């Protein structure tokens, strides 16, 4: 088909027209127009505000609002906290997600459906309901709390850990809630990727003398790398924007960037600060994706190749 269309065009169109992209690209124009008007342009405005509206606490800094990134310890703590929680969340989510996806690929169809249903089920619950459910489950007079505390208390008395156990209304609670929310976003791309892996290569690896661990480590894991990277980017980028879960499960004490930006926009009117943080996070996200693109071919990851 593609070959036919090109040969027709070659015959019909003069040479200079052939240099132009295909007419099908015109179909993208309305979507592109919308994107520019409602996404790119506001984004440019955000960038613009971050440059011209200097927050009172950034006055006199060489880089304006961006100077706060280097001089304000509170902002640095905020970004570091956000990065730390997102990284921990991503690590745990990917590790758990990989196991579930692996299982889903290898069980029979009926069990796979059951697993898929279990994964998708969480999509139907509102993030608020989930947060409150976790609070009920993990609060300090709950069953889970008592069970965990059984192991925690001896450790505390030995001095291995410090402070009272807090499963919820703490950073631990936020990470539990975020991992729960992000799991489907890790499992589904991993599952799609693993389904594309020819299971016979594992048999071949075993046939050629690799042990179970060796064949996984040297054959299966590299083959699943595109899915792994894709899921990591997805989870990490989504985590950066978390808002409700940290606010509810953090007992008010886990302040992350997204909510901080909201407060600066809507409550304290420090738009310069808010847009600077938004721009910084966007730049960090893009840099992250670019970095990942150097490691794996992004086209493979999104199934375009």
């Amino acid at each position, binding site marked *: 088909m593609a070959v036919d269309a090109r040969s027709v065009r070659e015959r019909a169109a003069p040479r200079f027209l052939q240099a132009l992209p295909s007419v099908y690209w015109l179909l993208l124009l309305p979507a592109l127009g919308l994107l520019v008007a409602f996404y790119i342009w506001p984004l440019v405005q955000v960038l613009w505000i971050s440059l011209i509206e200097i927050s009172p606490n950034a006055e006199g800094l060489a880089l304006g609002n961006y100077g706060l990134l280097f001089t304000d310890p509170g902002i640095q703590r905020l970004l570091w906290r956000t990065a730390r929680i997102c990284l921990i969340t991503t690590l745990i989510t990917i590790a758990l997600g990989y196991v579930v996806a692996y299982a889903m690929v290898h069980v029979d169809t009926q069990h796979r459906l059951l697993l898929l249903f279990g994964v998708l089920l969480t999509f139907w619950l509102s993030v608020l309901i989930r947060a409150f459910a976790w609070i009920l489950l993990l609060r300090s007079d709950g069953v889970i709390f008592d069970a965990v505390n059984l192991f925690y208390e001896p450790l505390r008395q030995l001095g291995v850990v410090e402070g009272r156990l807090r499963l919820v209304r703490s950073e631990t609670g936020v990470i539990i809630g975020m991992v729960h929310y992000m799991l489907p976003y890790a499992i589904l791309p991993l599952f799609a990727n693993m389904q594309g892996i020819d299971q016979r290569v594992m048999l071949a690896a075993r046939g050629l003398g690799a042990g179970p661990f060796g064949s996984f480590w040297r054959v299966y894991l590299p083959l699943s790398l595109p899915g792994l990277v894709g899921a990591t980017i997805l989870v990490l980028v989504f985590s950066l924007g978390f808002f409700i879960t940290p606010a509810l499960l953090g007992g008010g004490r886990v302040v992350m960037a997204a909510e901080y930006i909201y407060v600066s926009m809507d409550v304290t*009117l420090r738009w310069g600060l808010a847009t600077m943080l938004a721009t910084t996070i966007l730049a960090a996200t893009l840099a992250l994706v670019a970095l990942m693109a150097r490691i794996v071919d992004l086209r493979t990851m999104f199934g375009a190749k």
Partner: protein
Amino acid sequence: MRRAQSFHADLVQLALERHAQGRIGRRQLLAGLAALGAVPALGLDRKALAQAQEIVLVNWGGDAIEFMSDAFARPFEADTGMRVIVDGSGPSMGRIRAMVESGAVTWDVCDSGGGNSIQLGQDGFLREIDYSVVDRAKLFPGMDFRWGVTNYLYSFVLAYDTREYSADAAPKNWVDFFNTRDFPGYRSLRRDVLGHIEVALMGAGLAMEEVYPITESKEKLAFDTIRGILDDCIFWSSGAESQQLMRQRDVVMGCFWNTRVKSIYDESNGAWDWTWNQAIVLPGAWVVPQNNPAGDAVWPFIASMQDPARQVRLFELFGNAPANPAAAPLVPDELQRFNATAPENYALQLPVDSAFYGNNIARLNQAYLDMIAI
């Protein structure tokens, strides 16, 4: 999804919940309102009214749309023939600013706060109040702002679980609140600094009269006081969240909005109670964005909402207290105990220094969030 950040948004949610629970009967309220319709027009500037067709009042949505229509809009329409539209989009500071900057202002009167009015006004987003039409005498002292008129009052009160404390063992002031040795257990503060500098200063042992003016060293003292109980403290953001803490007994005491505690008090038959002692009383305020479409017609409308009977009606619906001192005698006796501006309650409380927050809240909130964050 937007979280209920302000007290105003919270009132709406509260009213919705109480209505759903059958605690507020709509019929009976409407009947009461009919009697109020006979209120005489208050110094109306007919000329100003003639120019505008309608006034848009913006509040925080939900039942507040209907309640404010009944308490304020319909009586005004009956008096003047001018249409009032009540819009529940939520006039946050960010939205007011965005609207004024975009040059397409569609709001006339917005339900904001005293400190907010100062912050927004200083940045040039609000019109100055015309006190030749709006009556300063119908406000508590210090509640007449340059860019805002107090529309109702609410308080941050010390609330406690009565199942934890007998009447005489209960925490009585903020010193008790910050005393985690004699009053162990989790307690709760709001995740916003408004009113909390005062709470912490009294917690550090200052008398109510010594709190103001807030100096740099007092700021530091307040922050240190809160830092001292961080490990025993859970911070709430929305009013619904504060109620959740009370219901689930996650905390033994808290600094909550009086309206929310009252609601828990009602539903739990007094399992939670509060003291007006050392409470911080704060003004909600009507503000008018620059270049509002109805022009000067907003002033007679705002003046009409100062009417005591109309404010009492809103109090009965929302639990937020009338801003007009003359309204207190009209509040039914059985509800006086819950009225923040009943004279005997008001005397126990500290009216917030709105100017202090108007000038400092952005800086303080940034420092506060940084301090409480793990």
